[in-house]
């Protein structure tokens, strides 16, 4: 086994996912077989290889692409955004209480 039930529970906790008992069992089994397959990457020696974080990092045509002029623009979106919120309390989103006093 690559992954234990306890690890699956911890990952679900980190990912903020409530899983049923059946899901925990299924995911433990499936993640285990997927991770076993992924082990094949260890056949490659990558000690001298740089990781590829972006397709075009540092290349010429991305040079001017990173920063635009810092000019304020109207951004009148509050009302449209709150219109589609599950529990708006204008101008806020309401959520369960997070601070106890």
């Amino acid at each position, binding site marked *: 086994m690559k*992954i234990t039930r306890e*690890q*699956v529970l*911890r*990952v*679900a906790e*980190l*990912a*903020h*996912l*409530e*899983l049923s008992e059946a*899901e925990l069992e*299924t*995911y433990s089994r*499936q*993640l285990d*077989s*997927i*991770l076993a*397959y*992924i082990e*094949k*990457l*260890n*056949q*490659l020696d*990558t000690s001298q*290889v*740089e*990781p*590829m*974080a*972006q*397709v*075009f990092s540092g290349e010429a*045509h*991305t040079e*001017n*692409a*990173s920063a*635009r002029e810092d000019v304020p623009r109207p951004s009148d*979106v509050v009302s*449209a*955004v709150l*219109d*589609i*919120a*599950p*529990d708006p309390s204008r101008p806020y*989103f309401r*959520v*369960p*209480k*997070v601070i106890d006093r």
Partner: protein
Amino acid sequence: MTAPAWTIPSVRAALEAKKVSSRELTSEFFACIERRNPELNAFLALSPDRAFAQADRIDAIIARGEQLPPLAGVPVAVKDVISTCGVRTTCGSRILENYVPPYDATAVGRLESAGAIVLGKTNCDEFAMGSSNENSAYGPVRNPVALDRVPGGSSGGSAAAVAAGLAVAALGTDTGGSIRQPGAFCGIPAMMGTYGRVSRYGLIAFASSLDRIGPFATTVRDVASILAVIAGRDSSDSTSVPVPVPDYAADLDRPVRGLRIGIPREYFGEGMDLIVRQKVEAGIRLLESLGCVPVELRMPHTDFAIATYYIVATAEASSNLARFDGVRYGLRVPGATLLDMYKKTRGRGFGSEVKRRIMLGTYALSSGYYDAYYLKAQKVRTLIARDFAEAFQQVDVIITPTSPSPAFRLGDKTDDPLQMYLADIYTVTGSLAGVPGISVPCGKTPDGLPVGLQVFGPHFGESLVLQLAYAFEQARGSSV
């Protein structure tokens, strides 16, 4: 299946000759959708108000005798992971069941500015995660070529809609093969440009370093016309590149004689259906008869692409999908505490494949495993990209099968996620390397199932990819 009758040039000719108005043509497409969609399940939402308002604008341009924009009156469909202002956008997920975006994706805005008519939103695997369209919360799409088969995924609805003649063209998205593979399964050309060629603004993110928007159509020429409209720098997407966009359609007729076509041995190994091999090899001989020069290649890291992809893509997905927490939009399942609300909302709102990938990605990024999985995969991604860079030192384009098999039956692979992932074996490589790729029809199996031939080009080599695909399409004609 009836043969799709309309193309971008034929729509234009009919409008200019006043054989049909844009409003009448739009009505005709909605009537077709009404007839066929109950069976195919390709569309999740229709946007008649928006479509007819646009059709009336086109008809007014015609009435005034003014020059028509390039996609005037062309009915298009948009994959449901791409935002459409005022039109429900679910990503095939329960968590966005009632989500109506307050803005348009750049690609959608550009299509409409060019005169296209947005008919509606197409079904897809939930958050574009899947290879068969069976992961949609709104039911699978059926392949219009064979109704007991999947249309491919994740852009299955877009492929099925175009193949069935319910739209002249469609937008899909490709992260590991999600445009090219459904194009192959449904028997139509389907393309992703270079990473960054088309703005991702308004595309609801799955894996940001891999996601690309691209077109489906019934001809390579129409694919080229759509790509030319949606491509180009967009200040709202910092990864979109400021490289000029050529007139792809105008360049299609350039001769392909003398082009060196790379045939990587790794793409013709075990696991491929015999009939797919026969069709693709016949396709290569056809290209040879056009004067292309085949060059045998080695791309030694091909076999590591699926493992690499399923770490990189799921890691990015686990981060991107953290935004769906029930606070600002979409589903909220009440909970006693804030954390309880997050967990319940996400636990019930996401389907099983999405949760599986979030779990895998969270694990790969978690403390103690990051180096072993995510960093390792990013390094192997470098090696895969290097395979492509070295190949393009020797050849102009690379030719491979699009998928190891034709469309499989609904339900065939749903019990085994790893088997489903392996269906992407020939497409994920180009996704990781960021190169452009197209799938073009390459004949049919004795059962009548389409086979796709894939063409990869170097970064920003879209013109070359399209030229080769066009020459191939013309040479094949309507032969099987």
